[in-house]
């Protein structure tokens, strides 16, 4: 059974009176435990595709299924619970909650899900990624690499089935970038999580199980 299926996804943005087709007729299957890379140049629609696949946005037309559940028209609060329990996110710009410490950022999804052991889980994850000593620092006090490690821990705290990563190394230097990718892949391995990663980096892409290439909003190769 595929863990993630997209059928004929289209996304159109309207800016003023202009309609911009960002994605056209994209279909995609992802197998459990797979490391899928979505590749493409800037403006090809990679991030938009990721937001549709992960339930952060809704397509103009087409359907998205996660474990055979159609999430396309799912009510927002049901989708929120889905995101909380089954999906983890890692972004290029980290997107940590300003005003929360590193540990609090990691605990946040677990607390939303009502997990009473959120603090312990967060602490363990921080130790695992070597950030135990930065527990009580706020995000603006962390380096880029540290922020991304916190973001990865946050994505993992509820042990999700799927992790979506949007250019996770885009704002990092090459050494940190490699370290982050290694961390993601290690976490994927250990928790048997499916990883869907968006990048324009060939070095990252070559480590994937499969590559899907997007160009001008369409899949060039590697789709279903």
């Amino acid at each position: 059974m595929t863990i993630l299926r997209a059928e004929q996804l289209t996304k159109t943005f309207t800016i003023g009176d202009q309609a911009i087709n960002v994605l056209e007729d994209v279909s995609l299957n992802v197998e459990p435990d797979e490391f899928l890379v979505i590749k493409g140049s800037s403006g090809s629609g990679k991030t938009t595709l990721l937001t549709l696949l992960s339930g952060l946005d809704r397509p103009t037309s087409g359907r998205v299924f996660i474990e055979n559940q159609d999430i396309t028209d799912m009510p927002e609060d049901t989708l929120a619970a889905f995101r909380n329990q089954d999906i983890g996110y890692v972004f290029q710009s980290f997107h940590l909650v300003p005003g929360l410490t590193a540990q609090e950022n990691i605990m946040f999804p677990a607390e939303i899900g009502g997990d009473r052991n959120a603090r312990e889980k967060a602490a363990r994850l921080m130790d695992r990624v070597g950030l135990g000593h930065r527990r009580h620092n706020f995000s603006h006090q962390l380096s880029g690499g540290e922020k991304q490690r916190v973001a990865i821990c946050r994505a993992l705290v509820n042990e999700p089935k799927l992790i979506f990563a949007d250019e996770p190394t885009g704002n990092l230097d090459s050494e940190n970038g490699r370290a982050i990718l290694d961390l993601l892949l290690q976490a994927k391995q250990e928790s048997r999580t499916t990883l869907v990663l968006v990048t324009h980096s060939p070095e990252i892409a070559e480590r994937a199980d499969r590559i899907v290439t997007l160009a001008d909003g369409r899949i060039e190769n590697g789709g279903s």
Partner: protein
Amino acid sequence: MLHPAFIRRQVVRSRKQATVFVLCVVLSMITLIALNGFATSVHQALMNDARRLQAGDIIIRSHYAFTPGLQAAVNRLAADTRISAARLYEFYSIVRTRGEDRSLLAMLKVTGRGYPFYGQVVLTSGNRFDQVLQPGTVIVEAGLLERLALSVGDTLRVGDADLTIADVVTLEPDRPVTFFSFGPRVFIHPEDLDGLGLIDRTARVHHKLLLKVHDPAQLEPIAGTLSAAADQEQERVATFQSTNSRMQRFFNNLLFFLNLIGIFTLLLAGIGTQSALSAFLKEKSYTMAIAKTVGATSRFITAHYLIIVMILGLAGTLLGTAIGMGLQRLLPALFSGFLPASLDVRLSWPAMLEGLLLGGVVVALFAFLPLYRLKHVRPTVIFRKESPPGRGGLPYILTALAIAAIFIGLIIWQLRDVRLGLYFVGAIIGFLILTALVVQIVLLLFRKIRFRRLILRQAIKGLFRPGNSTRPILITLTAALAVIFCIYLVEANLDRAYVQSYPADAPNIFLIDIQKEQVNGVAALIGEATFYPIVRARIRAINNVAVNRTAERRRRGDNLAREFNLTYRHHLLSDERLLEGDALFRPDWDGPQVSVLDTVVRMRKMEVGDVLRFNIQGVPLSARVASIRTRTKESIKPFFYFVFPEQVLAPAPQTLFAATRVPREQISQLQNQVVARFPNISFIDITETVTVFSKVMHKLSTIIRFFTFFSIIAGLLIMISAIFATRATRMQEAVYFKILGATRGFVGRVFAFENMFIGALSAILALGAAHGAGYLICSRILDIAYRPFIGDSFIMLLLPIALVIAVGMGASRTVLKKKPVSYLRGQEGR
């Protein structure tokens, strides 16, 4: 599951915006609590002091001698020792020195034995009033001694009598404020009354009976007995609890008007609350998007921010209450002269609770929509700038209706008149809509204009920066400034018209209580003058329907229950014209006729042919309405509501009234001459009277401007909130300018010009509205020529501009100081 750390940090991180929200809540509370609490406290204090302020338990008033029936009832009760009674007379008359070389209009008070039953008349000698005031003596106010250059022991001529000044009064219990007096007080012993020779020749004598009820439980029954015995047309019986003193009535009217301003401020503060809260929550949209990304539901988000809003709202409420209570303590000083200095004004907790509740409801209403919009925040906000959810749909309509209902209800409750309330609400809404329309047109024009200078171009662009709230700021500031400017301009024009330069064609002296046989003698002294006969009467019925005196007295403004001055003549005055009817009187009608001024028709609808029944000092007279007149211009010339043909009223008991104009430097001498020969005549120097009104007017406008200033603060808070809301964009702009080579001074000037445009636009629009309204008020209602006071208008233009620039630049300080590199670093990896 609550996240306390999240809540705390959200407030701390946006403490500036949170502070603005709290201040808007504070503003919502202040005027309500201050005015509400003060009004209730004063009423309570006046009630507590009512006995002393009335100097008796029961007060019976009349403009005529008391009827035998009432007098007999009083005598019976006194004989049964159930009451003590003191007879009082109050009237204006000219008093003068023995040499007749100096004279002065004074308020005479003849006080019977027992006065005052409560409170004390305080004399400078420290002696007892009833011991000092003996037959042949007077007790006077210090002002009289100063103006007539007299001392205690000197002789004062009052009417036909020479009386010795025995002491000086400093406090009179039933006359606690002297702001509205046209002459100093003179106390006279009742045994000297006949010797004055004034009572029978003075039209405007206030007759009073003060009663002390020995058994408090008998107060209402005795008042009821006396009411039953009184002539309802001309005698009013009231207890100290039920009567309203003149001071109280004035205070009620003033507070009524101030409460309307308070409601206006509440509305503006509510708009500020909504604006500040929207800006605060908009700052949090990024955080909310992240939270939704990691699985927080809308309920989670709304619950947390609702708690934040409640905490801030509570802080604002408590602070507003504390400041409102503090302001209550300052209000007696602001109202000094209108209230007794000795009045013990305390905090009124029920009134404060009422203000608190009302303020809370208004804040909740205005906070609803920004909170409701939270559910529309999408996770994708973190990727791109989403346009805010549309302002439409049922919740918005319902909220707008609820807000409108609350304010309409408040205003109607304040005015106690549904029709007037709806007119007032309509006027406010109309004014705000018109202001919004003009603002919109001006902003559209600005968008079209292409400024050559970069600074101006950028400054104008800043007005249209997303989230800048330029429109609400302009509307609020314009509305608040317009009210303040209008009050100033009307007061300045009144001052110029009547105080600085008295109208050249208006009479400047009035002579009252001229007896028929004195006309020739008076005319010989004052020269050419018009003499108007005055016959006092009341209206009993219109077309056989009796006038409801109780209902009439409850009306604001003039009413048909009062006594009127009738007159007779056969011609229209130079400033009158007919509205209905072909002539003043109908030659083809038999029986008495009357011509009615349109002012009366505004009190009660009347037509030509209607029959009015008058009571002329006990004698009934029915007359048909022959014509309806109007005045072609408002002026200080005498006018009469009811004019009769000579043959109808000439036989009635009457006095005459004369108005004339003499050179100012001759007034004093003429006064001495007239009064020396005719002591019963009251000689009134109108210019002095106008000066008293000017003082009152100035004080009133100061009070009104004080409260209207709070609405300016509301406008400034909205402005500050908008600056904070757009801080990120402003910072980005400032940094990009600097990266591209602009100096900090350049950036500062751009922001300064932006604020200057806002201040200038508000001030110009407000000034335009104020001049328009001022012109209408002066020309249509007050009938005086309107002057725009260019110099003062210029200052009124500059002050708001300076204020807005100062506040705007103060709020933008951190933006200007931000270094490009630290900003750019902060943008990498949020």
